[in-house]
C-alpha cells in the first residue's frame, strides 16, 4: 500500500520535474503554517522560534530558527538557549547562523514555511514516526512547545494540526508533492 503510493508519487514528481528543473524524483514537501499570536502586553518582543524534527534513534534536525541574528557581535545568540528544548535537542550542536535555517524573528500573524525532502535542512527522511516541534520563547514573556506527530512517508492529503495556548497559535502541517 505504502510502496504503491510512493511509486505513484515518483511518477508525478518526475512529470513535474520534466517541466521545471531536475528536482529529486521523490520530492515531497512539508508545508507548515505557524501562527504567532498577537498579545496585548506592555512590552512585546517578537519570540525566538525554533522548528525541528525528531525521530526516535536519530539525531534531531533543525529546520528553522527565528532569532535576532543581525545584532552586532552576535548578541542575539545569547538568548537562543532560552528556546531550551530545542537548544538541548539540536541548537547547541549547530553552528549559527546556519544556511537555510537561520531567519529573522517574525511579527504576529500566520507564517507559511515549506521544506522539501532531500533538500536543505530537512534532508532525506527514512520511513518512520516523526515529530515536528515548534518552540517559541519570548523576551519578558513565556515559552511554549507544540508538537506535530507525523508518519513518513505521509498519506496523501494528510494534515496534522495543533493549537498553541500562549506563545503560539494554530499550527498545521500538510504534505505536498
Amino acid at each position, binding site marked *: 500500500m505504502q510502496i504503491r503510493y510512493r511509486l505513484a508519487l515518483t511518477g508525478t514528481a518526475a512529470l513535474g520535474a520534466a517541466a521545471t528543473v531536475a528536482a529529486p524524483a521523490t520530492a515531497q514537501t512539508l508545508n507548515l503554517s505557524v501562527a504567532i499570536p498577537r498579545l496585548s502586553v506592555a512590552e512585546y518582543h517578537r519570540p525566538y522560534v525554533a522548528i525541528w524534527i525528531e525521530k526516535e534513534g536519530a539525531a534531531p534536525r533543525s529546520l528553522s530558527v527565528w532569532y535576532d541574528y543581525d545584532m552586532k557581535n*552576535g548578541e542575539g*545568540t*545569547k538568548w537562543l*538557549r532560552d528556546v531550551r528544548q530545542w*537548544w*538541548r535537542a539540536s*541548537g*547547541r550542536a549547530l553552528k549559527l547562523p546556519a544556511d537555510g535555517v537561520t531567519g529573522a524573528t517574525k511579527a504576529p500573524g500566520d507564517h507559511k514555511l515549506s521544506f522539501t525532502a532531500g533538500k536543505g535542512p530537512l534532508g532525506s527522511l527514512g520511513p518512520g514516526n516523526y515529530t515536528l516541534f515548534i518552540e517559541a520563547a519570548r523576551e519578558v514573556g513565556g515559552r511554549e512547545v507544540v508538537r506535530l506527530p507525523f508518519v513518513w512517508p505521509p498519506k496523501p492529503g494528510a494534515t496534522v494540526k495543533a493549537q498553541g495556548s500562549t506563545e503560539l497559535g494554530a499550527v498545521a502541517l500538510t504534505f505536498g508533492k
Partner: protein
Amino acid sequence: MKATYLIAGALAALMLPATAQAHRQWMLPSSTTLSGDDSWVTVDAAISNDVFYFEHFPMPTDGIAVTEPDGSTGKIENAAKGRYRSTFDVHLTKPGTYRIANVSTGVMGSYRLNGKQERLPRGTTKDKLASVIPAGATDVQTAEMSNRNEIFVTLGAPTTTIFKPTGTGIEMVPVTHPNDLVSGEAATFQFLLDGKPAADLKVTVIPGGIRYRDALGQMDLTADKDGKVVVTWPEPGMYWVNASIGGGREGGPGGMGGPGAGAPGAAPTPPTRPAGPPQRRAAYVSTLEVLAP
C-alpha cells in the same frame, strides 16, 4: 561547613566531635547553559545555613580557579567581597564546559613536645610538613584534608575534557553531564576518593529555595560499589550537592576518633579533647542547575 571553621579561625573546632554544624559553602552561577560565541557568567559565593541565600558570610575567592574547555587555565574577573557574599565573573570565550573550582589540600595533625600536645599550624601543606614539626616531637599524628567546591558552566554544547580526575580528594566524574540535567530525568554521577571509586560514599542533595517551602527536601544518597549515585530531579532549579568523609561533617560517616587515645603512661592528665588518630578528610561541594523539560 568547612569554610566556616576557617573563617572563624577556630581550627580547634575541627577536633571536636560531630556537632550540628550546618553552614554550607556554595557558589551560585547566573547561568549554567549558555549560547553564543562569547558570554559571561557571574557567580555568587557565600557560606550560609540555607542554600542559596547569602545571609551569613562571603566565601573567599582567592583560591578559585577556572579551567577552560580545552584544559587551559582561565581566570575570574571583577571579584568583590560584600558583607554576606562574594561575587565574581567568568568570561566564556571558548565553546564547551568550564570548571570553576575552589580546591584546597592540607595536612592537619598534632604532636607532643615537652609533655604538651601541639597542633600543626593552619595551612600546613604536605610538602611543608617536615618543616613544621620540631625536632624532638613525639606522637606525631597527621591526616590529609582535601576540599573541593566546584561548579560547571557550558557555552554551546557540553564537553568532557575537564573531567579528567586529579586523583586527590573527592571528585565527581559525570556519567550524565552536569550541564545537561532536566527535571524528571535521572542523572548518574560517579564519585572518586583519591582517584578510586568512592563506594558507599554518602551524598546529600538539597534543592534551593527552602525559604518558600516547609520541607527541606534533602535527598540522602549512598554511592554504589562503583561510587555511582543516581539522582532523579523532582523539579527544575538549583541543587546543592555535598559529600564528605572524616570529621563528622555533613554527609560524613562520623566524628573524629574516640576519647583519650594517648599512649599509655604518656598522658597523666586526661586530654582536653578527643585525641584519636586523625582521619583522612575530604569534602566535595557542587551546585547543579536542573532545567525544566
